[in-house]
């Protein structure tokens, strides 16, 4: 992890600029950004811990609590909503016991409601980890989620 952060630093004229990339690296390594993970980033970049926590808490894609093995990012913004995206919030709740901001009891999935993922032309849409799933329909949800263990 530290080596990767060193490589990133070289891309910028100032070390602080490596903060967002470094937080992504730490999040990938630990699954979420614990206080220890953020301290490791602060040390690697020689920044005050408060700055690291301040930045990490500002951005919605940084997770400040433990997450499941797979992250579902479901969009419910206007273009997705008018094509029925809210139904998928209900489906995830009813069939998987998954609430927005929550994690399934077996730790398999976490769910985050997104503010537009730029897939409006193929709405409703969601990201599972880094895979984009478009034109969602009720019947293809089990098939899609079945791929993620």
């Amino acid at each position, binding site marked *: 992890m530290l080596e990767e952060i060193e490589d990133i630093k070289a891309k910028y004229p100032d070390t602080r600029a490596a903060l967002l990339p470094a937080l992504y690296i730490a999040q990938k390594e630990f699954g979420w950004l614990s206080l220890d993970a953020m301290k490791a980033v602060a040390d690697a970049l020689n920044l005050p811990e408060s700055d690291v926590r301040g930045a990490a808490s500002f951005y919605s894609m940084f997770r400040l609590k433990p997450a499941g093995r797979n992250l579902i990012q479901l969009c419910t913004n*206007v273009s997705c909503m008018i094509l029925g995206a809210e139904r998928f919030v209900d489906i995830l709740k009813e069939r998987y016991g998954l609430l927005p901001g929550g994690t399934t009891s077996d730790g398999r999935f976490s769910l985050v409601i997104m503010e*537009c993922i730029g897939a409006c032309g193929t709405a409703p849409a969601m990201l599972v980890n880094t895979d984009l799933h478009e034109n969602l329909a009720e019947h293809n949800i089990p098939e899609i989620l079945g791929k993620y263990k």
Partner: protein
Amino acid sequence: MERFLLRNIENPNSADIEEYIKSGGYKNISKAFELQPSDIIEEVKKSGLRGRGGAGFPTFMKWNFASADKKFPKYLICNADEGEPGTFKDRPILEKNPHLLIEGMIISAYALKAEHGYIYLRGEYPYAYDVLNKAIGDAYERGFLGNNVLGKNIKFSLAVHLGAGAYICGEETALLDSLEGRRGQPRNKPPFPVNEGAWGMPTIVNNVETLANIPYIVGIGGDAYSKIGNPNSPGPKLYCVSGHVEKPGVYELPMGTSLKDIIYDHAGGIKDGKKLKAVFPGGISTPLLPADCIDCAMDFVSMPKYGSMLGAGSVIVMDETVCMVKVAHRAMKFFEHESCGKCTPCREGTEWMRKILERIEKGWGRSEDISLLADIANNISGKSFCALGDGATSMMNSILKHFRAEFEEHVKEKRCRFKQKQF
């Protein structure tokens, strides 16, 4: 119309550097390098190009301000943080035509004497991140990027910087704070980024589509370019259409194409033969237009005459089954979530409005709530630190203006009559 920005995208290998070169790509760099940097800015001036991010600021003016500043190094930043709900117009360029953007950035950097560039990409586009990194790597290998571009002793380094899910970082000064490793909150202006931007140096922040137009302008010349579309706001434009249409998608059309033609001729009309109710012409931050007001030219100078704005050209089409209170509520939830917290009117006002809209939608609204919404909106409008607050109020005021009766009905009937029908 022959497509330029979306050229070749049906080819499954369009993102490949070989395919791009085969289809005539990267040749405009050589043409640009034969010109003086100031000549290129002059061509951009003649072209009439306006920034495609939403504000429509003349590109050559931004470039001139940055060029006049004698501080070095200068930075060229591509704003690839398209987060406005309904916007997905830059995605085909980023994912399928990345070398067009890179070529545009190399020419722009040469014109601006910027030796370093960054593409600030939204975190929600992981696929585009991989495509861009591969494309940049290939461009370095072929000598289009690096310390000696095409052996002409020109330096340009380029890297992708991934955002992390903050809409506000599409605002150029918030973007710069985010690039520098801070919370992405807008900065005071002046100083403007063209004088004091990234790391205090002159910085040009241009949208993906803006930069992707540069090779075309150099290729055909500013004069020829200025004859495409509306002469006051020329060029090809990417319109992205979503919602209740038969054929949603991204359409490259001459700037100034009518909203009606975009919806009915290009996007195939309203889905399942239903009736049109309303349209956000440029994302949810632009004033909503009701069905009888869509005969308008979609460009930067015309749209204000019709009471709206072009924004990013993000057309969200809603049919007769949509409840406008619900749309206002969902849209306000977005503004509340994305308000960066820096200024009070936006931070507090968007939350209050969301709460009021929520209770109206649930049938718990009070008769005074409707005028209260208008009052809060008017106390944010023009008083927030950046345009996010204004976007929230444009949405609110325009929906109230055209669909006030629907709000009154919710309050009076204590329910939403669309609820059963909608899904």
